[in-house]
């Protein structure tokens, strides 16, 4: 009876530490009030640091700032001038789940890490980590860079091969200051 091999092959191992291109995550006009208003309403956070200019100026931030990891969401927006990605996705697949094929119109199509060279296709979320260093401010431009932070491989007692993959995305502003670091771990099996 053949033993299940550890899926952490040399090919997979070679990706550990690999970074994708640093790309601009914010739209060309940077962080602005309307997007911030919509977002803070959606997380139901009425903090005046996000909208009250006079009060925000009196804080250590010196002006309006955004919620801690706001910058990690803005790269998903579909920029103007592209073919409507929702119409295209459903034209190509009438049973589209709404995300497959839709993201291509967004800013986050660039800066992708290479796919993992593994036959393990089932993906389960294994956890998230967030580190916050600075809040984005109005007018900031946000840059993101993804990296394979770590990859571990194992075979469970019942012979199931699995990889635990941690990707890290570092968000910086136009001055190169680190705003936040997000790590997402997934189990591939």
């Amino acid at each position, binding site marked *: 009876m053949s033993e299940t091999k550890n899926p952490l092959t040399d090919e997979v191992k070679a990706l550990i530490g690999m970074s994708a291109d640093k790309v601009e995550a914010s739209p060309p006009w940077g962080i602005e009030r309307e997007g911030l208003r919509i977002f803070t309403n959606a*997380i139901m956070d009425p*903090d005046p640091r996000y909208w009250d200019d006079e009060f925000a100026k009196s804080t250590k931030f010196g002006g309006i700032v955004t919620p801690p*990891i706001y910058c990690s969401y803005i790269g998903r927006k579909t920029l103007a001038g592209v073919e409507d990605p929702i119409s295209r996705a459903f034209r190509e697949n009438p049973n589209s*789940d709404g995300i497959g094929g839709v993201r291509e119109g967004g800013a986050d199509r660039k800066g992708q890490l290479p796919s993992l060279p593994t036959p393990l296709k089932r993906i389960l979320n294994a956890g998230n980590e967030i580190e*916050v*260093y600075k809040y984005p401010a109005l007018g900031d431009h946000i840059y993101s860079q993804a990296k394979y932070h770590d990859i571990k491989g194992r075979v469970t007692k019942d012979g199931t091969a699995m990889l635990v993959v941690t990707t890290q995305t570092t968000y910086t502003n136009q001055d190169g200051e680190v705003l936040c670091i997000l790590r997402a771990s997934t189990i591939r099996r």
Partner: protein
Amino acid sequence: MVTADELRTKKQTWFDDVSVGQDMPPLVIGPLTPTHLFRWSAAIENWHRIHYDQNFAVYHDGLPNILGQGSWKQSILPRYLKDLCLPDGWPWKVQFQHRAMIVPGDTLTVWAKVTNKRVADGLGLVEMDVGMKLQTDIETCPGTATIVLPIKGGRPIPYPFVAPKEA
């Protein structure tokens, strides 16, 4: 729900005043409705149908109902930590796992319990177990967090934040 004025005038919680085993004030959100979920999907342009299309969620993905977004939960935890730290503390880091699903009708209680406190590089670090429980007491988001609270008479917490050397 907390108000803008409460966040504007919030009194500082000092490092000196928290103790191991202390429960921090919770944040209660809900009951969630399909409209809340729809608003979040629209705000971040996430068109995944499981969050707003009940037939798709139920019959295609085999879910009990449309689901609350993990990306939303991911913003609520740092928001909660931010509130705990106001005005001059810093919500440094949090790590968590997604567990139980959340669906419309659920009320979430975001909570934190102090597990350790220590001074590193002149900064007051408060380590906590954190999570987001449903009204049934089921945990949806177990995790841990470290916030930085100012020490009375101590050095100001730097902004932008700089991780303490010994941490």
